[in-house]
């Protein structure tokens, strides 16, 4: 035990795990109804990990060998599950991202959630999330990662369904949990296969070259693909992406933290985490690339037609996650991971800004917000624009650099189709992003004054509480500077800087794609003459298709109703009632019935009874006599 305290790194990791759960437990059990105290506990327990994360990042900036701490969590026979921490660049970076954003969101929530009766619970759930996400980052074994991963799912479930009186919220929470669970089962199966082969799920082992050689290739592919199922679930990849837009039912800070910046990035992180193993399977890489691409395009197109601001960002998140996966699957570990980092910053920013609007105007529809004078909220409007620029990949914002990296990776892929698709994605992204921005900035039909009548005192100040604006500013700063840290991060993550061959074709095509997207948005939405209808509405069928979200929700609903409830559940229930249970009852009743039948032998007629008796005696006697 003393080792835990003498080694500060270990103590730090340990505290990262223990503090949030302590906070969760304390708040849930004792201080749920005391909002101030709950807040204090929760903030304390998220500030310390923040400090730890940054100091660890600082301390191990030049880390060469991963630092591993392993303790036995379970020692069964074949299955040995360690509990431990793995500190290497991948985990340290993620740790920092998570700690930072969750700290910011906690600060932000002070303002956002003020006065909510479930304030205490909210912070407890945030702590639970912090625990699980930090755990995902620094787990030393895949199984520990899986456990935290599941806990992430649970906290997501709890937070999405935070306003559980709303049917849509509770439904969305359930949907999120079940759909991600769908992927997780695959993940778990993959883990099971790996365990059966190695009996050990230490990430360091799995990533070692020996593993890839000792395992038959088909099995590696199977395992990798199964694990990829988990990624699809958590990172909302097609076709399991359907939960994420619905997850926007939760409070907006939650969306910022979980459903854009960190939790959904866990899937991408997982691939990055076991990248050497994952990339050992070309099939898995190919599938991932395809899935990522489909996701990118699909969600971008849906994002083009959504009117709920959070929905737009949600689909944008999905598409960016697809983009990250593309990057990783195209062979560039750094590109994917770098995009994850930058995306965490600007997407959290986007959500938090939107949160301010939503909080202020009490609506999610950005047309309404614009009409109500959304642009008068200066700080949020500026920061959201910065974030939008980053998202669209405009220089010098962080998104530009990371997108460039991914497109670069795609460009080097032998099949150029992926690159083109990436460009198309970038174009669409820019388009739908600026659709929102232009609508907000240049409202076409300001709402009539009389509508504002009773909201008058509200209208007077367009100020934002500092607890909400500070995180915005911090994140905006990150968005501005992170892009220029590319080189440092490369060295940190890869141990060396990549050799950048400046491919102007690449650069130009990316910029052109982004700018043309913005331009088209300007034409459609921004300019004075804009008709405020998307270009896509010229093809009504397609627009409808997008509006219906490619019918994916319908598909899943249908699948659930027809297969799960309609077929299996009903059949099994019927079988249970009628066949299994009915069989048992039939046996019982026929026993009773046979009793009734046999009781007729006990006639009231003495001589008939005697007759039976004699016949039996004679029968037994004859049987015995003839038998020998």
């Amino acid at each position: 035990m003393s080792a835990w305290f003498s080694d500060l790194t270990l103590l730090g990791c340990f505290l990262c795990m223990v503090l949030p759960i302590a906070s969760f437990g304390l708040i849930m059990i004792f201080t749920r109804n005391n909002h101030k105290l709950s807040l204090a506990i929760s903030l304390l327990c998220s500030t310390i990990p923040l400090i730890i994360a940054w100091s660890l990042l600082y301390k191990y900036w030049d880390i060469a060998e991963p630092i591993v701490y392993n303790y036995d969590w379970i020692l069964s026979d074949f299955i040995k599950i360690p509990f431990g921490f793995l500190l290497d660049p991948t985990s340290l970076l993620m740790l920092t991202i998570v700690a930072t954003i969750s700290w910011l969101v906690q600060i932000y929530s002070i303002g956002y959630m003020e006065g909510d009766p479930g304030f205490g619970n909210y912070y407890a759930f945030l702590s639970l999330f912090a625990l699980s996400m930090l755990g995902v980052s620094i787990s030393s074994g895949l199984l520990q990662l899986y456990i935290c991963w599941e806990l992430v799912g649970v906290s997501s479930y709890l937070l999405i369904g935070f306003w559980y009186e709303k049917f849509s919220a509770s439904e969305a929470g359930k949907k999120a949990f079940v759909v991600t669970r769908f992927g997780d089962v695959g993940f778990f199966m993959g883990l099971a296969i790996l365990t059966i082969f190695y009996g050990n799920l230490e990430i360091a082992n799995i990533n070692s070259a020996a593993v890839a050689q000792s395992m038959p290739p088909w099995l590696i592919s199977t395992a990798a693909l199964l694990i990829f199922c988990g990624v699809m679930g958590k990172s909302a990849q097609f076709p399991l992406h359907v939960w994420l837009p619905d997850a926007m039912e939760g409070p907006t800070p939650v969306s910022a933290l979980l459903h854009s910046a960190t939790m959904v990035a866990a899937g991408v992180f997982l691939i990055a985490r076991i990248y050497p193993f994952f990339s050992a399977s070309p099939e898995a890489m190919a599938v991932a690339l395809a899935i990522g691409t489909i996701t990118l395009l699909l969600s971008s197109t849906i994002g083009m037609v959504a009117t709920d601001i959070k929905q737009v960002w949600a689909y944008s998140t999905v598409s960016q996650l697809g983009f990250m996966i593309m990057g990783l699957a195209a062979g560039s570990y750094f590109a994917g991971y770098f995009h994850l980092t930058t995306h965490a910053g600007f997407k959290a920013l986007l959500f938090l800004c939107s949160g301010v609007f939503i909080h202020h105007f009490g609506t999610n529809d950005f047309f309404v917000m614009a009409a109500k004078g959304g642009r008068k909220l200066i700080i949020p409007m500026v920061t959201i624009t910065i974030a939008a620029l980053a998202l669209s990949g405009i220089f010098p914002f962080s998104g530009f650099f990371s997108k460039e990296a991914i497109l670069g990776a795609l460009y080097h892929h032998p099949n150029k189709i992926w690159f083109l698709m990436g460009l198309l994605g970038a174009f669409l992204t820019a388009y739908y992003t600026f659709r929102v921005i232009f609508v907000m900035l240049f409202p076409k039909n300001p709402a009539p004054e009389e509508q504002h009548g009773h909201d008058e005192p509200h209208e007077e100040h367009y100020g934002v509480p500092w607890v909400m604006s500070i995180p915005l500013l911090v994140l905006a700063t990150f968005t501005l500077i992170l892009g220029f840290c590319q080189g440092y991060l490369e060295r940190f993550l890869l141990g060396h800087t990549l050799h950048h061959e400046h491919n102007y074709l690449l650069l130009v095509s990316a910029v052109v794609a982004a700018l043309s997207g913005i331009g088209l948005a300007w034409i459609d939405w921004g300019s004075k003459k804009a008709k405020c209808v998307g270009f896509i509405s010229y093809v009504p069928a397609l627009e409808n298709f997008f509006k219906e979200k490619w019918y994916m929700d319908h598909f899943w609903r249908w699948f659930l109703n027809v297969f799960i409830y309609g077929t299996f559940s009903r059949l099994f229930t019927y079988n249970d009632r009628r066949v299994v249970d009915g069989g048992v009852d039939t046996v019982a009743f026929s026993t009773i019935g046979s009793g009734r039948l046999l009781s007729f032998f006990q006639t009231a007629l003495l001589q008939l009874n005697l007759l039976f008796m004699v016949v039996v005696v004679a029968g037994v006697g004859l049987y015995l006599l003839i038998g020998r």
Partner: protein
Amino acid sequence: MKVLLFGPELYFLGMALVLFILSLRRQVNIRIDHQVALGFAAGGVVVASACLFQQGELFFAAYRVDLFSQIFKVALALGLFLVLMISHNLAHIDDRYHAEFYLFLTTCTLGLMMLVSAVELLTIYVSLELSSYSLYILVPLRRGDDMDIEAGVKYLFIGAVSSCFMLFGLSYIFGATHSTYVNEVMAKMPELVQSPIGIMGLLLTLAGFFFKLSVFPFHFWAPDVYQGAANQVTTFIATVSKAAAVAVLLRLVALGEVYGFGFTQALWILSIVSMTLGNLVAIVQKDFKRMLAYSSIAHAGYVLMGILTLSEAGYTAAIYYAVAYLIMNFTCFMVISEVANDGRNLQIVELAGLYHRNPLLGLALMLGLFALAGVPPSIGFTGKLLVFTSAMKEGYFWLVLVGAVNGTISLYYYLKVVYAAYFLEGKELPAVHIGLSTRALSYALILIIIGFGVFPDRVVELARVAVKGVLL
């Protein structure tokens, strides 16, 4: 000390005489009748216990006194005593005949005692008839409707036919072995059991005991008689006479050490059919006593299972089971005669609300029924398991399986009674008041049912020693 050897029998003979004299009095005083009978019966238990460890032979070896017989004599004396305990209220028997009632019970017990000690076939037969005749008379002694006399007729004629079969069998044994002495028969048996005459002779002889024990197909009297006879008489028939029948059955079956396949197979079939038939038909009964009659048929099957193993363990188990059956069945009948204190027949639903009408009786009834169903921790469970164990040891796998499944079926109807007693409210039914003696008896029975169920060792050991004596 030859007198001691014959002590219990003499004592009960004396008791019969006293009761006979009592029956001659003109003035009827049922309280005195009962007290005298009860007092003598209590003395009988003492005497029988005192003679428990007697050993010897009487009447030119026609009568053997050994541990086996003495144990059963104690059990019989105890049984009589218990039956008399619950006879304080003979509502369904004419006051004039109370003395005769006790007298016939005593002569029946005497007959049964001689039955368990007799080692001469003719003595066995006549003792059996002595006990049977007493019962034939007791059954129609009930007052009231025509049920009793009908039951009496059926009992008599089925009994008569069975005893004809038995006599025929006896004659064949006599013809084949030239003797009526069990030990001489036994000497001849080993070579005889392989021949048809030996087997058939023995089987036909057993018919008489099957009748007593109500084994299929000699069971037809049981439901009718149980229902038709007065509660106390039924109690006696269901408990005491069964125990004695088991004893003699054991003694006779133990004649041969090795039987051919056929003989055991015949018993096997009878055992299975008895169990199954009894249990199945019991399910549909509404009258409690009639239900118990069918259950007794089923239990006869279990006893038979122990006997047909032809092993020491099996006999031990059968004895244990018989004693256990006596006790648990008696418990149920005690409840019947206390609840139906006007002597009527008890429908199962009339037990409704027994748990608040009289909690003690309710508990006793439940334990008794659970014991009958073979639920632990009770004497019935241990007995059943011992029987099964011994049967399995001899390789009767299917028999045990059927027996075990039958246990489940039987639980159904016992639970129906428990259901009535514990679940139905029975608000309109009156509370049942019991005297001190019955209260003490209930406690004692509960204790015995659980105590000997949990600590069966003593009884088992005793039974085992006794069996050794029979097997010689």
